[in-house]
């Protein structure tokens, strides 16, 4: 399969969040700010790509009956690596993301890709699939994080630097609280549905 198609597949056509609705918990929990979404996304890209590579390399070795536990151990190992690295170099972000870093291990996106793609495809495709899916997840995290941060704090912080000198309007605190996460995500998905339907009827006409 064409590598470019595999990459864009994860970002657009089978975007794990917007199209397949996988990994909702970390998505909603950590997206109180744009940068939280970014770093969570980086962690997921790393785990997803690495585990895809190893699963693909071992795909002829692992006995089918015990494949799921094997996948879990592989994923858990990379999650532990991420935990240690983040704790060492980004301790503040590690603190903010909290239990959702170790919880990457139960993120359905990762196990689903190991099972559905990496265990059936060669190493290079598996790696590209991991990057594509991870990117798709990161984009979703950053969109949701950006929207929530913008309306919830009336500002955007990028790399520790606020984008605007003062809040632009009276911030709606609820956006960075749990209800804001659910409602924003629901509205984003609905808008996406509207866009997809528009595109479809446009193509049909």
């Amino acid at each position, binding site marked *: 399969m064409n590598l470019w198609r595999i990459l864009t597949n994860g970002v657009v056509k089978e975007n794990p969040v917007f199209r397949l609705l996988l990994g*909702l918990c970390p998505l*909603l929990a950590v997206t109180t700010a744009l940068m939280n979404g970014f770093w969570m996304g980086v962690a997921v890209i790393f785990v997803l790509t690495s585990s895809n590579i190893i699963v693909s390399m071992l795909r002829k070795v692992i006995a089918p009956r015990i494949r799921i536990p094997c996948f879990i151990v592989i994923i858990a*190992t990379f999650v532990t690596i991420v935990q240690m690295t983040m704790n060492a170099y980004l301790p503040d972000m590690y603190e903010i993301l909290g239990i959702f870093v*170790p919880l990457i291990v139960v993120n359905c996106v990762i196990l689903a890709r190991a099972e559905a793609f990496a265990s059936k495809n060669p190493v290079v495709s598996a790696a590209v699939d991991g990057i594509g899916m991870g990117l798709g997840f990161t984009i979703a995290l950053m969109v949701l994080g950006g929207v929530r941060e913008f309306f919830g704090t009336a500002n955007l912080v990028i790399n520790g630097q606020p984008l605007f000198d003062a809040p632009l309007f009276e911030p709606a605190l609820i956006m960075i609280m749990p209800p804001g*996460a*659910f409602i924003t995500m629901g509205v984003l998905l609905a808008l996406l549905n509207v866009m997809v339907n528009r595109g479809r009827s446009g193509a049909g006409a």
Partner: protein
Amino acid sequence: MEIIAILLGGVLINNLVFAQFLGLCPFVGVSKNVEMATGMSAAVLFVMTMAAGVTALLHSLVLDPYGLTYLETVTFILVISSLVQFVETFLRKASPVLHRSLGIYLPLITTNCAVMGAALISVRQGYGVGLSAVNGFAGALGWSLAIILFAGIRERLELASVPEALKGIPVALVTTGLMAIAFLGFQGLFRFLF
């Protein structure tokens, strides 16, 4: 007193779904009707209480004393998935009736991040084995309350003329958000207990 605080906190104030964003996949997936939600709740109650207790035991007996806490993620996920397997096998032999009602839900639990989440939270709070089990139970109770209430509303939504673009998951998420607003009313309840 601490037990009461953990129970109240877990069910009402720090509800897994409405405040902590845990266990959302099955929350959205298995909530189409109240019966299914109840079955799933029973399975989660059972597994989560045990998982929180067992992982706390493992943490305090093995990982902590031997300086192996970095293996937390790996060991916890293994313990939880084998526990689910074990519970399934055990129920099949010991109580076929219970197995018939819970059986289909059990495999779904391994990917339920709430179980792992409750275990991690218990350890980070420094609860002992007993309190960890209570914390797991409280979390599961709160999750069950949330999913059963949600399933009741979703059954009613089946009949509602929801706009096309919002049908399905989007409106389910908005519903959850509105429920989370209602649960905000419990913020700060019984502050003197905590």
